[in-house]
């Protein structure tokens, strides 16, 4: 269906937070009321109050589309009534918990798919999401918190949102709310405090949430700046760099491990993705030690969450340029080069060639700190 065949797609605004209880639903309801008072037709498509009295109280005054009943394993379960909501055709709809999995037998498996259909019907949507539900962050957050979140949504859904609003709360304030029984009933508080709601978990999740929203803002700013300008065609083809993307030039030898570690630390500090590139000279056969070094590099990349790219070329600089452009690299790291031999002495050094080939990309030579004359004595 082309854009001209139906109503213009609705806009999606997502309230994102580090965990349950930070006030996402509350804020969504406040905005619903504000829109209602501004004269818009607002309904609640689905609201999860989790038994919180203040949330239920705030929902009063907003029309709610009755839920539908889905029978699953002999039990009647309540889900959002998508057909009734679209038939009601409000201007704005509030749909809580974007990552929710619908009961089997519902029209869609996931709630975000329902939301997509509502948006396609030209209805604006306000929704909520916890950061741990984002697919790309799921493993990272499982490692941080020790809790695997089953309900995930593709990052692209959040990427397509017109607005993303971070609902932030300090971990201490969230724990106070939890202890006061404002998040879960009293009988669940102790279990929550001992599992997910530990201060170190919450601090880490808060950092992830802040970073995620910063990246979303950065990505949107980049797109806004480019679209509509004379660089529009470039914008549609170029990889959109979200913050920094690092590329480390490696070779299968022991010293590459150090370069990768340093590059990874830099990537961590910048909140950036890291790629590793090895350019294999055509026809080169690896020695046993080189094979092992290459395997070790692959293992290190995998554990660090970096991507090892292997390409074949006899022109290292040209291949680095090619990969950097493909991957949207903003920062190149390379180790100290061995002194050139033979005709290679006549060529410009690799860093200089890279700076000429990739204007606007930072090039950093990583020093071997163990060789510093004033290094720490063992």
């Amino acid at each position, binding site marked *: 269906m082309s854009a001209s065949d139906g109503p213009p797609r609705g806009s999606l605004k997502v309230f994102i937070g580090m965990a349950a209880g930070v006030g996402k639903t509350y804020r969504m309801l406040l905005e619903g009321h504000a829109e209602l008072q501004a004269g818009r037709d607002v309904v609640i498509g689905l609201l999860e109050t989790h038994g919180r009295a203040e949330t239920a109280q705030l929902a009063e005054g907003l029309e709610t589309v009755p839920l539908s009943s889905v029978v699953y394993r002999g039990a009647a379960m309540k889900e959002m009534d998508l057909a009734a909501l679209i038939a009601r055709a409000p201007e704005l709809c509030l749909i809580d918990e974007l990552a929710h999995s619908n009961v089997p037998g519902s029209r869609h498996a996931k709630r975000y798919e329902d939301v997509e259909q509502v948006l396609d019907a030209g209805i604006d949507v306000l929704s909520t999401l916890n950061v741990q539900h984002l697919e790309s962050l799921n493993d990272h957050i499982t490692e941080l918190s020790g809790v695997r979140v089953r309900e995930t949504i593709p990052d692209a859904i959040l990427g397509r949102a017109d607005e993303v609003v971070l609902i932030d709360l300090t971990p201490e304030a969230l724990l106070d709310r939890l202890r006061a029984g404002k998040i879960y009933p009293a009988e669940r508080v102790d279990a929550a405090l001992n599992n997910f709601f530990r201060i170190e978990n919450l601090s880490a999740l808060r950092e992830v949430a802040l970073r995620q929203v910063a990246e979303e803002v950065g990505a949107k700013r980049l797109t806004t700046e480019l679209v509509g300008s004379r660089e529009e065609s470039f914008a549609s083809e170029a990889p959109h760099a979200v913050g920094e993307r690092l590329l480390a030039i490696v070779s299968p030898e022991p010293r590459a491990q150090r370069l990768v570690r340093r590059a990874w630390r830099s990537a961590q500090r910048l909140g950036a993705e890291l790629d590793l590139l090895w350019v294999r000279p055509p026809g080169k056969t690896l020695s046993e030690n080189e094979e092992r070094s290459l395997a070790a590099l692959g293992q290190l990349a995998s554990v660090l969450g970096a991507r090892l790219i292997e390409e074949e070329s006899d022109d290292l600089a040209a291949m680095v340029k090619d990969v950097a452009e493909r991957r949207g690299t903003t920062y190149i790291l390379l180790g100290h080069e061995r002194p050139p031999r033979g005709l290679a002495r006549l060529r410009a050094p690799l860093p200089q060639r890279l700076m000429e080939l990739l204007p606007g990309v930072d090039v950093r030579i990583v020093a071997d700190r*163990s060789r510093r004359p004033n290094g720490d004595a063992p």
Partner: protein
Amino acid sequence: MSVFTVFAIAAGGMLAGIGAGYWLPPHGRLARRERPRTVRRILLPFSGQQISRRSFEAAVRLAKAEDATIMPAFLARVPMNLPLESALPVQCARGMPLLEAIEQRASQQGVAVDARVGRGRSARDALRKLIEAEPFDRIIVSADEDPQAGLGYEDLRWLLERVPAEILILRPAPEDKRRISAGGVSGHF
């Protein structure tokens, strides 16, 4: 004998001299060829945030004596609820600085270093995978007071029974609290 012949003989002699200087020991290619082809590899595994200084020093002494390469290996544990191939950035944030500190110290003492990272469901599992992937001539492990900090006694027993390499287990004296930790990294890392 013509002047040309004299020059030709002199030039030939000089070339022969240069060639001999290049090919003969101690600095030439013959010397390199005579070196043993297999470099001895000493594995120094760890999974905590510090290692016993005693173990490290033993590894350095042996590496120096045998012209061997020290292979410090960080053993990362993959939680059961994550796939085995998962990236482990949180653990790496703890392990990588220590790997760097070990490499810096060993390099400063003129010892070749080739670091590794192992990954498994436990430190033992990670070590087993590492040993299966490539051979090591010797493994130096620290029998730490705190089994949570590294390989426990059961792991050491497994190592002795199952791994076909020289195993050197060091238990530092109780009063020897010297450790190498991430804080030992020289400069910005």
